[in-house]
């Protein structure tokens, strides 16, 4: 019996990582964002799990463009930080937990999720920026092993929000049936509203974002019922990344305690959101 103790949702904008790597977090344009992270980071520093699962998408760095998995699971002992073209971020490589990966694979396959397995994988900013949001100064190593779950959010048709939420619920059951660790943290990444290309580039919909930040805690099934088209219209062509928050949320209990939320525009071309949930009963 392993227990998910927390869920963390956060945007994964590359420039957030760059601001940290270049020590610009106190600059006026960045300070409000990092101020907003502070309460979550403090709480998380006191609640390090035995292992974490991070739901993210690759941005044409770890996976070739000729193959696009809908849902993929890493089963490696470690994951290298990708060189996205201009050197890798100065952060540690990621230690995995193959035993738990194999358990999740078996459970999720038995529940009818058609996972792609990565026995090797380089992880890009979609993965490392959320780790940095969680742990700004990892030193030699991240606080615990982390297992990647990759979701296709770039190529249409993405998995539906409902399918993502269902994957999260199955993930919660799979974790609950595992005896190898005690405590688990889950990260759902991406979003909030943003669009990078086309005449609507720079689109931000803060009322949708605030609705989402509130309902992801209270009524995730409502968000799971939105169509791809609704996500793209309301949150922008890249805002559909928010479906990854639903994988995280599905793995938590129906009732969660919100530890902290933050919202900031802009981080680069994006609205950046954060939501931290305590999943422990009582």
């Amino acid at each position, binding site marked *: 019996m392993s227990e998910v103790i927390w869920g963390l949702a956060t945007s994964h904008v590359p420039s957030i990582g760059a601001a940290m790597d270049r020590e610009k977090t106190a600059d006026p344009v960045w300070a409000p964002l990092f101020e907003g992270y502070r309460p979550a980071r403090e709480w998380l520093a006191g609640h390090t799990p035995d292992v974490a699962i991070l739901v993210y998408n690759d941005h044409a760095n770890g996976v070739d463009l000729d193959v696009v998995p809908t849902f993929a699971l890493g089963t490696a002992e470690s994951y290298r930080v990708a060189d996205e073209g201009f050197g890798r971020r100065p952060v540690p490589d990621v230690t995995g937990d193959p035993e738990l990966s194999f358990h999740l694979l078996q459970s999720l396959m038995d529940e009818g999720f058609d996972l792609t397995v990565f026995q090797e994988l380089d992880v890009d900013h979609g993965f490392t920026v959320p780790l940095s949001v969680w742990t700004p100064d990892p030193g030699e190593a991240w606080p615990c092993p982390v297992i990647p779950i990759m979701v296709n959010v770039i*190529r249409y048709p993405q998995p539906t929000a409902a399918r993502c939420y269902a994957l999260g619920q199955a993930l919660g059951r799979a974790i609950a049936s595992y005896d190898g660790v005690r405590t688990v943290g889950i990260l759902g990444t991406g979003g909030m509203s943003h669009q990078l*290309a086309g005449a609507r*580039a720079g689109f*931000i*919909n*803060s009322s949708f974002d605030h609705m989402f930040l509130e309902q992801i805690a209270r009524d995730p099934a409502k968000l799971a019922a939105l169509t791809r088209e609704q996500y793209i219209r309301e949150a922008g*062509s890249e805002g559909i990344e928010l479906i990854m928050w639903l994988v995280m949320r599905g793995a938590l209990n129906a009732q969660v305690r919100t530890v902290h939320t933050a919202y900031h525009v*802009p981080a680069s071309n994006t609205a950046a959101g954060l939501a931290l949930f305590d999943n422990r009963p009582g």
Partner: protein
Amino acid sequence: MSSQIRPDLPGTYVFDGPTSRRGHAMNRMFMSLRAEQARAEFRGDEAAYCHRFALTGDQTGAVLEREWQAMLDLGGSIFYMYKLALMDGHSMQYLGGVFTGMSEAEFQAAMLAGGRTDV
């Protein structure tokens, strides 16, 4: 003919199957630019490099002229195109400006003011 219900939203590119197919060679070329050696070869002779990746004439022209909007229209994915932009020293804000008819500074100012909320 098919039941494709791909959203058709003004000013919004949805990178679907047909788009991915159309832009495949060009996106593959962008992807290759992650390696310094490839960037050096590209810089040495951009047209020849595009030819090696079997880009169409239109795509090669858009790449050589840095017509970012045309690259989108010819099947480019912003995540792949960004690798070329980075190589040129451009930011995503610069590209945002190009797509929206603003200067980089204007686009940045619009973002700092809370983003483009009315589009």
